[in-house]
């Protein structure tokens, strides 16, 4: 019998594995953790772009959370995210269902429908600007022709919000379409056949068969699109710059402008951290829902 039962040290194989993993771990720490920690420190200071500044505790957070601009931006971010997530999901699901049916040149349609997602957002924003910005743009001409008058899509605060949200749905629905199409492809046709044999209507099949069977992919796509929408900077900034009169200033735009236009890194990073915290909470809630779906 051995003299003692002490734990064995790592084997040579384990050590080799650790050594192989170490560069990746170090890179992840360097590129992700380090900037986040520094940003966290910066949110507790009154620094500028090139100086760390003095420690001010939670003052930046209290300033941000008591400012009207923050809550206005929170409101728009909420609307933008809700419309972006559910709007793009609804359109994406509808198209995915449509493309399940056999239509001529279905493959071509799939490729064309992916274009809004594939085209760089700079190009998309420029195109949308061309479509709506001036009275001579196509959309204002159409609205005038059908008797709605000369509509100022980007100059009117409410219409600008609507336009930005619709733009977001337009560039996001292909992603949802792909997610939903792959989920629908995994559903066995026999399930639909059985439902039809049992006398289920189309609506009943959709609500009681299709939706539950693709719920896992739906929740995953909602989580991802929520993150995409809350963190979406270029869609808004390129089309409206956050205007007019801050009507389309989301939290990420507000944060950017605090840091790079007003040179207030403390409040800017504080906003970013509040955003991150909120996103984590929303993601956890959706993830729990996802786990529930798995169990069921």
């Amino acid at each position: 019998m051995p003299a003692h039962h002490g734990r064995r040290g790592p084997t040579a194989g384990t050590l080799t594995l650790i050594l192989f993993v170490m560069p990746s771990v170090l890179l992840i720490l360097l590129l992700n953790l380090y900037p986040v920690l520094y940003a966290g420190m910066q949110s507790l200071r009154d620094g500028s772009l090139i100086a760390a500044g003095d420690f001010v505790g939670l003052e930046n957070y209290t300033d941000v959370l008591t400012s009207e601009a923050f809550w206005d931006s929170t409101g728009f971010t909420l609307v933008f995210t809700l419309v972006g997530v559910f709007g793009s999901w609804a359109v994406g699901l509808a198209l995915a269902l449509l493309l399940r049916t056999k239509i001529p040149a279905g493959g071509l349609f799939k490729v064309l429908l992916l274009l809004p997602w594939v085209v760089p957002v700079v190009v998309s924003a420029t195109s949308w600007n061309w479509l709506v910005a001036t009275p001579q743009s196509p959309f204002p001409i159409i609205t005038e022709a059908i008797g709605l008058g000369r509509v100022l899509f980007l100059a009117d605060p409410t219409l600008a919000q609507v336009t930005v949200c619709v733009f977001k749905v337009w560039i996001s629905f292909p992603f949802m379409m792909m997610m939903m199409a792959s989920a629908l492809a995994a559903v066995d046709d026999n399930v639909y056949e059985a439902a039809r044999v049992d006398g289920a209507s189309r609506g009943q099949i959709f609500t009681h068969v299709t939706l539950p069977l693709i719920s896992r992919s739906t929740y995953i796509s909602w989580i991802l699109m929520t993150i995409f929408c809350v963190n979406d900077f270029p869609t808004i900034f390129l089309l409206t710059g956050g205007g007019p009169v801050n009507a389309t200033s989301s939290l990420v735009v507000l944060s950017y402008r605090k840091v790079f236009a007003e040179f207030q890194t403390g409040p800017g990073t504080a906003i970013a951290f509040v955003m991150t915290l909120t996103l984590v909470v929303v993601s956890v809630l959706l993830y729990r829902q996802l786990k529930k779906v798995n169990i069921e």
Partner: protein
Amino acid sequence: MSQSGFRLSRRGLLGAAGGVSAAAALSACGGGGSGGGGGGSDEPIAFWNMPWGNTEFNPMDEEITLAYQPPEGLPPATYQVVQWANFTQTFSSAVASRTGPAVSSGGGTQAFLFEAQGAIAYADDLLESWRGNGLYDDFLPGLIDTMKTENGYAAVPYNLDMRVLWYNKTLLEEAGAEPPTDWQSFLDACEALKKNDVYGYGTAAGAGAYTGGHILVSWMIGNGGGLFNADQQPDCVTPANIEAMEFVLECVAKGYVDPASASYTSDNAQTQWEERRFGMGFDTGGLANNVGGEVGSDLVVGSPLTSPAGSQGMLFFPNNIMMYADTPSQEGSEAFLTYYFQNMSRLWTEKTGIGLPPLRSITETPEFQSDENNVKIIEEYQPIARTWAAPGGNALFQGVTAADATPAMDTFTQSILGGDIEARAALEQLQQGLEDTIGG
């Protein structure tokens, strides 16, 4: 794009972090820079310049830079183009991580931001040395003083970005209107143009377009007002400013301003000029060249408008070149800049599209004199042009960065051009916004 060795790769690595969090993290890296030595370093003088003109500008600028033959014992110069996209981040992260240039141009108020952070090498000695070689006296009147801070000259004027009144002479003739000379005749010309479905107050204040705000401040300055008092503090709610904004609101109410102006990008505004929807308006000194073609040749610089108070004035931006404290050789930075200013005239005489020159000798060249609009701007606008610091002064300072392309100014501009606000209320909001921005 030209690059200077390892500097770019390190900056590129920093830039890869991207986004607000990373940028904030980068800003936290600032540990302060050490001042450059007197000379003798092997490291070259890194000169970073912006794309100030057309596609010919930077190649020619690089050629001028690389032709520099330094005096014995001083370092040569390298050249790098910095794009306007996210230039503040580019410079800030580079300065904070001490991988920045020794000499650079940049945003018009950039030098004053960095000066307040101790990152700038003052140009006092350089300017003093220029008294002996004629360069100092060659600057247009009042220009050098715009660079003077409490501690010294933060930079050297490089090119002038002017805001001026433009009109389309054909459209004005068709409307039977005379080019305006004062506020009332401006209203008259706008009314005449309106009858032809043409806007008389063309401007833009949408995404990335700051001219709209510049022109509002120009109306204030033209009326003897402005944003900052002699103590360099925001002082927006003044009778002169209220009167100026009431005048603009009158233009909006009477339909002289394109109602979509508050959302126009610079490209949208240019399109309106090209499509003859703007018959008159305010823009940079390069508008006619940017529009080009038949319409471009119809565009003429109007005279500065005289306000009811009898005064004139427009906002202008004395873009500048600054030297950084973190330099391999301060003597080398100054020697390079002396060479550069003595040899940069080609950038204007060969029409690279850069803003107006700061040196009288360049404005007197036959090439410059061949452009009537530019000559008019130099003769009529430069003498009455004021900086953001007006009416309290003309020398720039860090506080003006609170007004230059900030949310407070955007909101103010879009509110006024939207027309749904009272002049006093808008100015009070602006005052509060500037105070909040300056106060942090």
